[in-house]
C-alpha cells in the first residue's frame, strides 16, 4: 500500500539525518543525553506531523500555479510559489510557538534542558526541508503528506536517539582528547550514515516498476552496534570513467 511504502521510505531510505543531512545543528548539539534527545525528537515528530499536511493544504489551494482557481477562474493564472518559503516558515514558526507553550506548561525541566533549541526547531532544516520536499516531490494527497511528515519525524527521532545513546556510552571510552565531543560525533554519524545507505536497496524501483529490480541484501544494522567500525568493501571497476562503485557491507 502506498502509505506503508512511503512511511518506511521516509524513515529509512530518505532519512532526514542520514540521507539528506537536514536538522544536523540541533542533532549535534542536543544529543548528549538520551532524555533530552527523546524530548526534542518527539517535538520534531509533532511539528512535522502538523506542518507538512498544513503546508500541503497551503500549497494546493494557495501557492501552486493555478491553485487559486477555486476563488474564480480569473485567478487560475496566478502562481504564488515564490511565497512558498515565507508561508511555510510562517506555519512552522507558529506551530513551534505552540509547542513551546505546551512544553513549558507540562514539563518545565524539559523546557529548560532544551533551552534555545526548542525555538530553533523553527529553523531546523529538517522541518522546512520536510515541507519543501513535500512540495517538490508533489505528494498527491493530504493523507500521504501526513504519512510523509510523521515518517520523516520518526526517522529524525531514530537518528538522534541512536547518536545520543552512543554518545552516552562512549563517555567511558578512550577517545583522543582532540576528538572528544564534537569530532567523534561527526565521525560516528558518518559511519551510521554509511550503515543507513544499505537501506537504499529496499523498495527500489519507480512507481510502475516496483518488482523489477532485485533488492540488495539488506543489512540490518542494529543501531547500538554502530560503534564497531564496519568493514566496507569498495570495488572500483577500473575502466569506468564514471566510477561505478559497489559498496557492500560485510556483515550478516
Amino acid at each position, binding site marked *: 500500500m502506498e502509505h506503508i511504502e512511503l512511511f518506511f521510505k521516509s524513515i529509512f531510505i530518505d532519512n532526514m539525518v542520514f540521507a539528506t543531512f537536514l536538522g544536523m545543528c540541533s542533532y549535534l548539539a542536543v544529543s548528549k543525553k538520551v532524555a533530552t534527545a527523546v524530548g526534542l525528537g518527539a517535538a520534531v515528530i509533532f511539528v512535522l506531523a502538523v506542518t507538512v499536511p498544513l503546508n500541503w493544504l497551503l500549497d494546493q489551494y494557495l501557492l501552486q500555479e493555478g491553485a487559486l482557481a477555486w476563488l474564480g477562474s480569473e485567478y487560475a493564472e496566478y502562481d504564488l510559489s515564490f511565497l512558498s518559503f515565507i508561508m511555510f516558515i510562517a506555519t512552522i514558526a507558529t506551530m513551534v510557538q505552540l509547542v513551546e507553550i505546551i512544553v513549558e506548561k507540562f514539563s518545565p525541566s524539559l523546557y529548560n534542558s532544551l533551552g534555545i533549541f526548542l525555538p530553533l526547531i523553527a*529553523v531546523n532544516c529538517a522541518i522546512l526541508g520536510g515541507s519543501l520536499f513535500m512540495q517538490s516531490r508533489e505528494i498527491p494527497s493530504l493523507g500521504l503528506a501526513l504519512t510523509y511528515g510523521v515518517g520523516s519525524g520518526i526517522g529524525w527521532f531514530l537518528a538522534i536517539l541512536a547518536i545520543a545513546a552512543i554518545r552516552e556510552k562512549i563517555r567511558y571510552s578512550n577517545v583522543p582528547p582532540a576528538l572528544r565531543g564534537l569530532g*567523534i560525533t*561527526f565521525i560516528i554519524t558518518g559511519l551510521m550514515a554509511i550503515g543507513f545507505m544499505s537501506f537504499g536497496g529496499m523498495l527500489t524501483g519507480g512507481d510502475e516498476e516496483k518488482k523489477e529490480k532485485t533488492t540488495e541484501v539488506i543489512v540490518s544494522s542494529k543501531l547500538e552496534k554502530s560503534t564497531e567500525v564496519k568493514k566496507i568493501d569498495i570495488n572500483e571497476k577500473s575502466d569506468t570513467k564514471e566510477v561505478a562503485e559497489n559498496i557492500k557491507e560485510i556483515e550478516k
Partner: protein
Amino acid sequence: MGLLSKKDAKLITDPLTDNNPITIQVLGICSALAITAELNASIVMAVSVLFVLGVGNVVISLMRNIIPSKIRIIVQLIVVATLVIIVDLVLKAFAYELSKTLGAFIGLIITNCIIMGRFEAFALGNGPWKSFLDGIGNAVGYGVILIIVGFFRELLGAGTLLGFKVLGDPIEKTGLYAIGYENNGFMLLAPMALIVVGILIWVQRSRNPALIEEN
C-alpha cells in the same frame, strides 16, 4: 587594516579559527555536507552566504529596536527568506545559468543556522557596522571550511578541481592513473563529508588545546 579598530578586526578573524561557525559553534552543518561534493558549488554557496549574512546582519541590526520580542524568530526568518528570494530573482533575470546552479541551494541558505545564529547572538544586540563585520567574518569562516571540504572531496572523489582533471584522465589512464591510482568514489558520498569535517575538528583542536572539551 587601518580602517578597523583592533576589536573590529577581531570580529572578522575570530570566526576563522577560534570561533568558527561550523567547527566550534556547530552551525551551518547541513549545507556544509550537502553541497561540498564539488569545489565550484562550495565556492558559490560560500559567496551567497557571505552576501545574505552580511546584508542580513545589517538589516536586523537596524531593525533591532523595533522588532517585537514575541515574533523575533519569525521576523528573522522573513528577512533571510526575503533576501534570498531577491537574490534568486535577480540572478534568474540577469545570470540565468548561474541561478540554476544556485537554485538548489536557496532553501539551504534560508535554513542555514549560521545566519539565524548570528542574528540572535550578535545583530540583535549590536550596531550595523559591527554586525556587518561579524556577518562577513562568520561567512568567511564558514566559507573556508566549505572550500576545504569541497577541495578534498572533489579531488579525491573525482580527480578534478573545479571541473579540471588535475590528476590525469581516468579513462585514458594518463597522469596518476597510469600507475594504478583510482578515484575514491566514496569521497563523493555524503557520509564522507561528515568524516572529513570530524577530521578537521580533530586537527583544529590538536593545534589549539584550549578548545578541547572536558569529559
